[in-house]
């Protein structure tokens, strides 16, 4: 099946974190996923988690260089959600054998594996950041995540000048790297 240009646009929007595209994808697919989850022993919160996870998987796929989506966004999201929910049920020991499915699905195992690996990485990063404590965490987030300039950061955090802030940032960065690489396996 060839994707129509509309879906291509949506995916491009998603890759660029475009609010409109996210809203559209959300609106078009969420109810379907919610129905799937609710009908299979899930709650509204489960539905939201699973759906957002699926959109993130789609986002990773849309961003990757070797990006090929061979089915409709709807089918892809449905397949991912179904797989994720099966897994979640299994983990909870409530796997009932068969998640009732009436929609067509596509194989998404590889994408999910990749996604899980990424999630693990992010968890490491998050843990490392959280164990830094303030002001290190805020400082690094401001510089690396929010991409603020050193001068601005110095003002925000109350350093007398940018060099002092830079110095502090260096110390924090070293600690973060140490924490991160303690858990992150480069050789993998």
């Amino acid at each position, binding site marked *: 099946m060839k994707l129509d240009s509309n879906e291509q646009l949506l995916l491009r929007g998603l890759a660029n974190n475009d609010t409109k595209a996210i*809203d559209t994808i*959300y609106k078009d697919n969420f109810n379907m996923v919610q129905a799937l989850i609710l009908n299979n022993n899930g709650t509204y919160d489960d539905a939201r988690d699973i759906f957002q996870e699926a959109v993130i998987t789609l986002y990773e796929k849309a961003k990757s260089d070797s990006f090929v989506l061979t089915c409709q966004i709807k089918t892809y999201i449905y397949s991912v959600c179904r797989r994720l929910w099966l897994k979640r049920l299994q983990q909870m020991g409530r796997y009932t054998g068969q998640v009732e499915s009436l929609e067509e699905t596509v194989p998404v195992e590889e994408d999910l594996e990749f996604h899980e690996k990424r999630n693990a990485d992010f968890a490491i990063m998050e843990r490392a950041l959280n164990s830094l404590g303030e002001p290190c965490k805020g400082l690094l987030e401001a510089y*690396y995540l929010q991409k603020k300039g050193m001068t601005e950061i110095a003002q925000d955090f109350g350093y007398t000048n940018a060099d002092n802030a830079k110095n502090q940032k260096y110390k924090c960065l070293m600690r973060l790297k140490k924490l991160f690489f303690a858990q992150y396996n480069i050789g993998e």
Partner: protein
Amino acid sequence: MEDIVLLNTIERYLSGDMLPEERAYFEQLRKNTPEIDQMVVEHKLFLHQIEEYAFHRDLKHALHESHTRLLERGDINEGEDVPTRGKVIQLFHRYKKVTAIAASIAGVTAVIISGLVTFLSPSVNHSQLQQLSGDIEQIKKVQRYQGNKINELGSTTIPENIKVLSSGTAFLIDGKGYLITNAHVLKGSGAIVVNNKGQEYIAKIIHIDQTKDLAILKINDKDFKPLGPLPYGIKKGSVDLGEELFTLGYPRDEAVYNMGYLSAASGFNGDTASYQLSLTVNPGNSGGPIFNKNGEVVGVISTRQTSAEGVVFAIKSQGIYSMVNELKKSDSSMSKIKVPVSSSLKGVDRVKQIKEVSDCVFLVKAYNQ
């Protein structure tokens, strides 16, 4: 202090902020110093991870916002009361066998009930009710007789080679030539009406109401001379039990008078649109008027019960009004029909009444050409 400079340099190198000469120098340095090279690779990986992490966090944030926004706008729902498409499909899936069984039971029941209704409904129940239109054998006789008459009169207006299917009685409701008869009398495509003097006129079927079993004919014949005001009126009110009634009809080719009384205010199986009469009638009386002693039309003879003698049913005269009014509503050209309300036969003796009335009661022959 050394390290800080080195790290800043690496960051600048990785972000591509270096000038070409500086870059070349740094790359040379990387080549020659494995430790620096290692640091560059490591830092690159780290920066990549933290960048991805940032994107991921932003996206998660955006998704949450999206969720809240759509929830507020009502595009998505988290309430119990909104059935989703999937739920419906699932319910259908789960209960489709039960539904199928229930549906077939309902279907069978519907068929049985409709069969029973058809079987028991008064107008179609031939075993218990007999419509009083004349049968074909009798009509043939009449036709022969009338045929002779036609030949005698030399009239050419009557269509030739016609096959008469049934006969009955009709009476005028408007001197301009509008007649009322039973719907079941008019089995064919056209009708001929014959007056008490044996003159035949071609009539057009204007309206047939099968549920009321009433029909309207209009004499369409150049020989027909419109009558003035009719001697009788059509009664709007109802009749009392035991009231004396009489009728004039054509069970044979001559007008036949009969009298009786109202024996019940409702018809066969409690049909409120008709009366039960005690009266001697025969096939051919169908469509005949029922008069009360004041000479007002109170009903139209329609059927008799086969299992009992002298039990006749007549459609209430209100049925005529409602049919004519309906017709007037749907066809404006019918608004010229004026149903007579008052009777001029009150207090007149019966022989005189019959004489007056007989000019307005016709024999109807329905035919197929």
